[in-house]
């Protein structure tokens, strides 16, 4: 049994933590949250220089070749530090989509640029409030061009490249689009978490290329959502862990009724519950990482399990962190709300808990079919 990350990856994780403690401090996060920039460029460039934007990309395509597991450990640290960079959009969605569905030519055209940090990618699925199911997507890809509107698109103000989910003649398709084209209009939309800005993208006859074979869109979409769910689960676990530590530290320092509030069982038991949820989520994410790294047949179930567990743990940790901080937790000046925002944004970024619970049980039904 070796259900753990390798020593090399643990070392990478330690280095990532040190780097992000320094370079992605709450002040850096707040600068993006409160400012006009879509992300922190200096931080992004340094991450690229360290090879993070090529973590999961094979070496022959200019990446660091660390595989999915390398991306998992980085994701956890990025989640912990709330790094205000388009890492999730670029790495968990765009790069994963290219690797899963791209032709050799497409991979060669885009992945080296992503690995170098020159290109920011994103994934454009939603078309306003409600769930954009394959049937409901209205954006079209016909005769080689995209038309329609995507809203909200994470990191859509900064991205160079989008994987756009659109109707084709053969069901939905995943379409690669260069966002520098004149037919792309982008507009920042205000969202819950301005530390990673989102946009409305409008496509008017924008040329694109289909990822994968015609008619394969639905399968690809499911696969990318599953892979991204696991990677994102690591971000969420990192965030939940940080909330737990913030709450614990505050509970030790803050006195009420002549005692540290951390000595009241109402607080102790609350934090014990957060600890349990976080550990469950971590273990479920580990299993997801294993499924991801092995392309295991259990991927769909592992992804749903990791996703539901991580959504719930980060949300619990983020809201109880505010609670433990009392009135202070409700202030802009304290960092609790940064995590509270991120928790909820990540919880809907790739399908809600409700949706993934449904997927989970569907998987169980087929896995446990009688006979």
């Amino acid at each position, binding site marked *: *049994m*070796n*259900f*753990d*990350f*390798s020593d090399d990856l643990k070392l990478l994780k330690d280095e990532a933590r040190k780097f992000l403690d320094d370079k992605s401090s709450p002040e850096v996060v707040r600068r993006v949250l409160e400012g006009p920039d879509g992300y922190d460029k200096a931080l992004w460039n340094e991450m690229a220089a360290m090879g993070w934007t090529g973590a999961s990309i094979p070496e022959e395509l200019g990446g660091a070749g660390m595989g999915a*597991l390398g991306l998992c450990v980085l994701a956890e640290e990025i989640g912990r530090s709330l790094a205000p960079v388009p890492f999730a959009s670029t790495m968990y969605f765009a790069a994963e989509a290219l690797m899963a569905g791209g032709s050799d030519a497409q991979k060669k055209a885009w992945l080296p640029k992503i690995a170098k940090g020159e290109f920011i990618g994103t994934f454009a699925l939603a078309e306003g409030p409600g769930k954009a199911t394959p049937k409901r997507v209205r954006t079209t890809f016909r005769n080689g061009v995209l038309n329609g509107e995507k809203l909200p698109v994470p990191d859509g103000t900064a991205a160079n490249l989008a994987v756009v989910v659109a109707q084709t003649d053969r069901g939905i398709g995943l379409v690669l689009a260069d966002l520098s084209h004149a037919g792309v209009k982008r507009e920042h939309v205000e969202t819950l978490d301005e530390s990673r800005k989102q946009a409305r993208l409008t496509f008017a006859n924008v040329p694109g290329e289909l990822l994968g074979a015609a008619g394969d869109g639905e399968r690809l979409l499911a696969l990318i959502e599953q892979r991204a769910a696991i990677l994102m689960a690591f971000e969420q676990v990192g965030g939940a862990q940080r909330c*737990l530590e913030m709450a*614990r530290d505050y*509970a*030790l320092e803050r006195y009420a009724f002549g*005692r*540290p509030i*951390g*000595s009241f*069982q109402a*607080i*102790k*038991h609350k*934090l*014990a*519950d957060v*600890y*349990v949820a976080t*550990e*469950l*989520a*971590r*273990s*479920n994410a*580990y*299993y997801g*990482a*294993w499924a991801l*790294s092995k392309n295991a047949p259990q991927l769909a179930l592992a992804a*749903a*399990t990791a996703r*539901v*567990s991580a959504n*719930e743990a980060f949300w619990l940790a983020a809201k109880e962190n505010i609670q433990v901080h009392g009135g202070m937790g409700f202030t802009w000046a304290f960092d609790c709300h940064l995590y509270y925002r991120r928790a909820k944004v990540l919880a809907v970024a790739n399908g809600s808990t*409700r949706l*993934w*619970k*449904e997927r*989970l*049980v569907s998987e*169980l*039904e087929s896995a*446990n079919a*009688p006979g």
Partner: protein
Amino acid sequence: MDFEDTKEEAEYRASARAFLTTNAKPRTGKGMLYRAAHATEDVLAEARDWQKKKHAAGFAGITWPKEWGGQGLSAINQVIYDQEEAQFSVPRGIYEIGLGMCIPTVCTWGTQAQRDRYAVTALKGEEVWCQLFSEPAGGSDLAALRTSAVRDGDDWVINGQKIWTSGAHYCQYGVIVTRSDFDAPKHKGLTYFFLDMRSPGVEIRGIKQISGASHFNEVFFNNVRIPDSQRLGKVGDGWKVSLTTLMNERFTIGGRAGVDVDEFLELARGIELEDGPALKNPTVRDKIADWYVASRGLKYSHFRTMTALSRGDTPGPESSIGKLVTGPKLQNMSAMALDVLEQGGVITDPEVAPMAALFHQTLMTSPSARIAGGSDEIMRNIIAERVLGLPADVRVDKDVPFNKVPTGKAK
């Protein structure tokens, strides 16, 4: 990252599986139903028989040192054996306390002669041991116990009462913590012994549990004499010795505790609700997902623990969450099972409704999973204090002579 056994582990697993396949029946949902409500002679004989076979095959006392008559192997071997055994229907319950907690304490604190006398007989299943810790006045707060031990020549004379003693009615020996000094602060005045349960003055009365079964007892001590040679640890060091017992709670990380998602799926598949099979109902599906996530989260936490053990490291604190997750899950799952069965959910007769009966059994036993061996609240305290480093509860009884400590209603 993988789940592969090392070569040695795989060999060990294969040998365990071979032993179990030859000697035990595979586990089935029905086999989980109603393990005898009372420990009848038949049930005990079956358990004895099984323990004897296990010992003969070298699967008893796996982690115990050779000087105790054990196999001298590592915790990972125990986990592997447990994982394999969990797939079979075997009667092992009556030995868990003795072999898991009592004998390790006797061996740690006793003489080599005592190890030679008691350890192997227990491993072979010839003698069963119980744990006489809890009292009416001391459960979670074990150190509040008041059963007294008074020195008299070469003996100690014991008076008082223990309660919740699992298996006392079929055990030959027991370990007991007593109070030898009522003037000392509460943790300082305790002394630990082991005793023959057939000693004159020991009276055992069964307690009927909410399930109707009687697995535990009240045990009364009326001038019971225990030779000083059966004292473990120094006079007044009983708390320290007790911790050995409590820390030896065996690794249960390989096995499965009671019903789980599979059994619920089986039930939900077969039941019709107003809108079709229960398994298609969104409310039911929501719950199934919750339990699956909890159950898997624990399973994979166990894999992390196993990984540490496999490398010879000490497992991290994640190994402490199991009880807190499983107890409430069992209880909620059985409650939901009855809901899904609607009016038929009241039927307990396994002949009429086997799946209903299985969940009834869980409904009526799961409360104990949240109390025995550290209640949910005590487990949360432990996590908050030992893992998160939050302050211990304010203590009003510290450094106060025991006979000045406030007591509540201790019936």
